[in-house]
């Protein structure tokens, strides 16, 4: 029986990053994967959706070429080429992980992994051959899949999940997107740009409901201007797929409405992959669909760990990676600091983009802070004017007493690359003053951060 220092089950951004860091730290490592290296993120999540959204952005430029002094005779999309490009990008990334595994001398065990007692993992390959491996430490990183609602069963044809939504053979004329989290609005953004008639149905009062209310409201206005229909405080009661289209019964505050579309995309969250992986046999505790772990990702059974989507905390790729790195650094005996879950950026790569970190205004107030709020709209930014990207704003929230940067919320072009400043600033426990006196280059979108802080302290220049 082959013996490893560490076996990681699942090769998503949790698993494969964990394996690389473990190998760097001198461990002998194997990673078990039943599908494609890179997990949801590289194959069905972060990466392929961003490729689609890039095509959407470029298509948007084609359609507005004259705004920039340019002429286009006939702009069109080749839907299947757009999808194919996305698949190629994903494949390339997955191959990249393969290369990284080799380079770091990590064994890839292809097959379905199941935990056994005594820190063993049984791997069943595609020919149903079972092999058992032993390790000092077993790390569970089996991730998650699309959640199915009982009244919205996915048939993979007319009612689909995210995988199908990024590989449709034909562009639908109309689409109902159920759920307006990051995944839902990103697909809405993509299909709207492609020319599909999109309707978003959201149960809560605001779309992108985890964001600051001002972001949600402004985002909703912009989406509506683009022609996306938005139904908030609404839920899909049932779908009828018997006809040519799908018919959806939607319960709204005003009563029931009937919608029809080519396709319904269910984007109502995720379901963790915790079934049939041996948790019960080993005795590993779960709670509300998640594997229970402590600050260092140790489960209740010594030698077994869990990281990524399969545990509590936001289901994000960068969180999965950070958890995995911390987990193995702790195993290696390094002095580590637990992750501050209050300082994790969240991004939505729609058009315009959303990025945020820390508390929303409402959360800060509810937490009892006396706050200073500042806001700077891109409509007042020189760079935004030059770029034709005046939608959105940066909003900052500070504790009035000590000046702590409680939250930062951004809506606009390129903000997903701008939020890092706020995350680092908060990590370093800055106050508003230092941000204000940090000379931001002109002309950039990032100046809006400095100006928003200035606004919080009544020193804003360009408003």
């Amino acid at each position: 029986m082959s013996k490893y220092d560490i076996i990681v089950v699942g090769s998503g951004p949790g698993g494969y990053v964990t394996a690389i860091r473990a190998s760097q730290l001198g461990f002998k490592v194997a990673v078990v994967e039943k599908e494609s290296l890179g997990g949801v993120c590289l194959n069905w999540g972060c990466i392929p959706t961003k490729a689609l959204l890039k095509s959407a952005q470029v298509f948007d430029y084609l359609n507005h070429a004259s705004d920039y002094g340019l002429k286009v005779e006939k702009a069109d999309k080749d839907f299947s080429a757009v999808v194919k490009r996305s698949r190629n990008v994903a494949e390339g990334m997955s191959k990249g992980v393969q290369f990284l595994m080799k380079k770091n001398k990590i064994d890839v065990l292809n097959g379905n992994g199941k935990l056994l007692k005594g820190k063993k993992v049984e791997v069943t390959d595609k020919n149903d051959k079972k092999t058992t491996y032993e390790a000092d430490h077993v790390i569970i990183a089996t991730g998650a899949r699309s959640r199915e609602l009982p009244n919205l069963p996915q048939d993979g044809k007319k009612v689909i999940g995210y995988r199908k939504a990024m590989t449709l053979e034909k562009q639908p004329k109309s689409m109902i997107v159920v759920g307006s989290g990051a995944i839902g609005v990103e697909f809405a953004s993509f299909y709207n740009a492609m020319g599909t008639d999109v309707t978003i149905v959201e149960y809560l009062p605001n779309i992108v409901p985890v964001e600051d209310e001002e972001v949600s409201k402004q985002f909703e206005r912009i989406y509506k201007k683009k022609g996306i229909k938005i139904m908030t405080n609404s839920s899909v009661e049932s779908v009828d797929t018997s006809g040519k289209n799908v018919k959806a019964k939607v319960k709204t505050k005003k009563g029931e409405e009937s919608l029809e579309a080519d396709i319904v995309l269910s984007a109502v969250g995720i379901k963790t992959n915790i079934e049939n992986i041996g948790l019960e046999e080993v005795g590993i505790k779960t709670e509300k669909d998640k594997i229970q772990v402590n600050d260092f990702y140790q489960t209740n059974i010594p030698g077994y760990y869990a990281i990524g989507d399969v545990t509590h905390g936001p289901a994000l790729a960068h969180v999965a990676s950070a958890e995995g790195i911390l987990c193995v650094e702790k195993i290696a005996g390094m002095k580590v600091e637990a992750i501050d879950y209050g300082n994790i950026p969240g991004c939505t790569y729609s058009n315009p983009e959303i990025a945020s970190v820390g508390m929303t205004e409402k959360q800060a107030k509810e937490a009892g802070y006396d706050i200073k709020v500042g806001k700077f709209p891109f409509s007042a930014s020189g760079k935004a004017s030059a770029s034709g990207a005046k939608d959105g704003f940066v909003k900052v929230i500070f504790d009035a007493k000590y000046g702590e940067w409680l939250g930062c919320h951004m809506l606009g072009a390129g903000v997903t690359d701008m939020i890092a400043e706020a995350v680092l600033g908060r990590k370093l426990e800055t106050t508003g003053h230092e941000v204000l006196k940090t000379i931001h280059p002109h002309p950039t979108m990032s100046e809006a951060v400095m100006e928003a802080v200035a606004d919080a302290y009544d020193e804003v220049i360009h408003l």
Partner: protein
Amino acid sequence: RGNQFYSPLVEQIAKDYHISYEELARIPASGQNGRLKKSDIFNYIENGRPF
């Protein structure tokens, strides 16, 4: 201000509680490289400023 670097936030809190740099230097720091964090200084205050 001693040889230690204190984050702007820690400085603000220290000022508010009249904690001198000498006193700050005695507070156990949990950040990497002995970086004193907001949580450290508040723990210390809650514990009745034992040092």
